[in-house]
């Protein structure tokens, strides 16, 4: 086992006899005990030594104990503090606990009581530090997630895919139809994986609210048209018609075009995915109460009522999706986040086997009403 640094304990009390006896009680254990006879000296020690545990007598000349306690916690909130109450009144103990003390020790106390409370205080300190370390690690992991995932997962997949791409050309004419089909299938599967990783990256590591920095005027019909261009190939394959309606002259909105297109592509793509072949998806844009509203409605399988509330929450995946459709519900989550970053809202209404309507509302900037 690695050698643990000695735990540091500071005792602040104006009575020398208390300081002496406490130091003596803790002697011989793996502690470094320091003492101070008044608040000012105690605070200085705390600052210098960064202790694990501090005992503070509440009744001292000079800076009152409660103030010392408060100042310690302002300095470092992970220090565990225990107050020593000369007059064992509940009131002062409660007041101290409110100010961050972990526990209180009424005078007079026995050596065993003091040892026990010291042990508990240090255990508490260990937990506090552990929790803090874990939280920091979690933050660090989150921050580095993009780098870790992109390198550790995407790189090998990219290398595999690049070789499959190359081999497809090199093996042209040499493979049977079945072998060709399997090769294509492999490429599709890897492509799906890469896309999935990209989506996860989007949700975890990219702070979508940052799109606010790139806001520029956007024409809604442009937006819808560009999104549809993206989804069209899928729609054609499933023989689904994409129909757009624009109600009159729509006002200009403010936003980040790329991410709004992404949001629309996810939603329209989702509508196509869950539509029956030969049906249609309608994208209707109107202006209502200072908002631009875009409704995306399909005549698809619909979403059961009990699942509806989950659709836009993090990481929902349709229960009824067919096995040949790979769906990662993450797309809708991303859409929601993008729209919220535009101060907009997204809602969904649906009836099983009738269809689903996604409604996006984005506020029209004030004064930018008429174009």
């Amino acid at each position, binding site marked *: 086992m690695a050698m643990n640094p000695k735990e540091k304990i500071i005792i602040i009390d104006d009575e020398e006899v208390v300081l002496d006896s406490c130091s003596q009680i803790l002697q011989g254990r793996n502690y470094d005990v320091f003492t101070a006879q008044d608040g000012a000296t105690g605070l200085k020690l705390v600052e210098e030594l960064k202790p694990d545990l501090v005992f503070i007598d509440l009744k001292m000349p000079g800076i009152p104990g409660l103030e010392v306690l408060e100042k310690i916690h302002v300095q470092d909130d992970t220090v565990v503090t225990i107050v020593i109450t000369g007059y064992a009144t509940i009131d002062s103990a409660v007041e101290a606990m409110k100010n961050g003390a972990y526990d209180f020790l009424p005078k007079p106390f026995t050596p065993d009581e003091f040892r026990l409370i010291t042990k508990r205080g240090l255990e508490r300190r260990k937990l506090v530090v552990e929790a803090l370390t874990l939280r920091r690690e979690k933050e660090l992991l989150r921050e580095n997630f*993009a780098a870790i995932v992109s390198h550790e997962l995407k790189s090998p997949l*990219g290398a595999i895919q690049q070789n499959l791409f190359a081999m497809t*050309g090199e093996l042209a004419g040499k493979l049977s139809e079945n072998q060709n089909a399997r090769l294509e299938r492999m490429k599709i599967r890897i492509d799906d994986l890469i896309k999935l990783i990209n989506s996860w*990256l989007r949700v975890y590591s990219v702070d979508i609210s940052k799109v606010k920095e790139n806001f520029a005027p956007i024409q809604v019909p442009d937006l819808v048209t560009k999104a549809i261009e993206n989804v069209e190939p899928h729609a054609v394959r499933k023989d689904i018609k994409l129909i757009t309606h624009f109600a009159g002259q729509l006002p200009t909105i403010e936003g980040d075009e790329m991410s709004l297109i992404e949001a629309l592509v996810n939603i329209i793509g989702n509508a196509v995915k869950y539509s029956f072949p030969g049906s249609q998806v309608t994208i209707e844009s109107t202006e209502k109460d200072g908002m631009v509203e875009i409704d995306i409605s399909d005549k698809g399988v619909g979403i059961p009522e009990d699942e509806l509330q989950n659709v836009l929450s993090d990481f929902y995946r349709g229960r009824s999706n067919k096995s040949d459709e790979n769906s990662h519900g993450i797309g809708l989550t991303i859409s929601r986040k993008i729209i919220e970053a535009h101060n907009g809202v997204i809602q969904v209404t649906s009836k099983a086997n009738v269809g689903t309507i996604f409604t996006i509302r984005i506020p029209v900037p004030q004064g930018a009403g008429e174009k």
Partner: protein
Amino acid sequence: MTVQKKLLIIDDDPDFVEGIKSILDGAGYDVDVAYNPKSGLQALQSKFYDLLLLDIMMGRGAEGIMIARKLRKDSKLREMPVLIITGIREQMAFLFPGEPVHPRFVAVDELVEKPVEPKMLLEKVSTLIETAEARKTKSD
């Protein structure tokens, strides 16, 4: 075919390089490879290349960017087109805040994401070389 074009790939992932090199070989290019930034720079200084294919994330971080920055400062090499190949297009905006789409490292460059479809790869490569040559003839 006219004179065989010379390309250099700088990328530290040998498997990826194999995949991309064989596509370029197949299209009739003369392809050299450097597996780290240092030997990449040495190759660039000792030989003329029509195009550089540059990976951004190498070694301990974005070491490819250092190469790109060095190229930008070199009066001769800055005319060489660079195709940046990266696995981190999504994060580019956060590595280079405030830059549009992707940062222009050198006068003639483009950015594609790993893995690259052969058709797109070959299109970008030939377009970049043509554009660079057209610029050169113009300024001659």
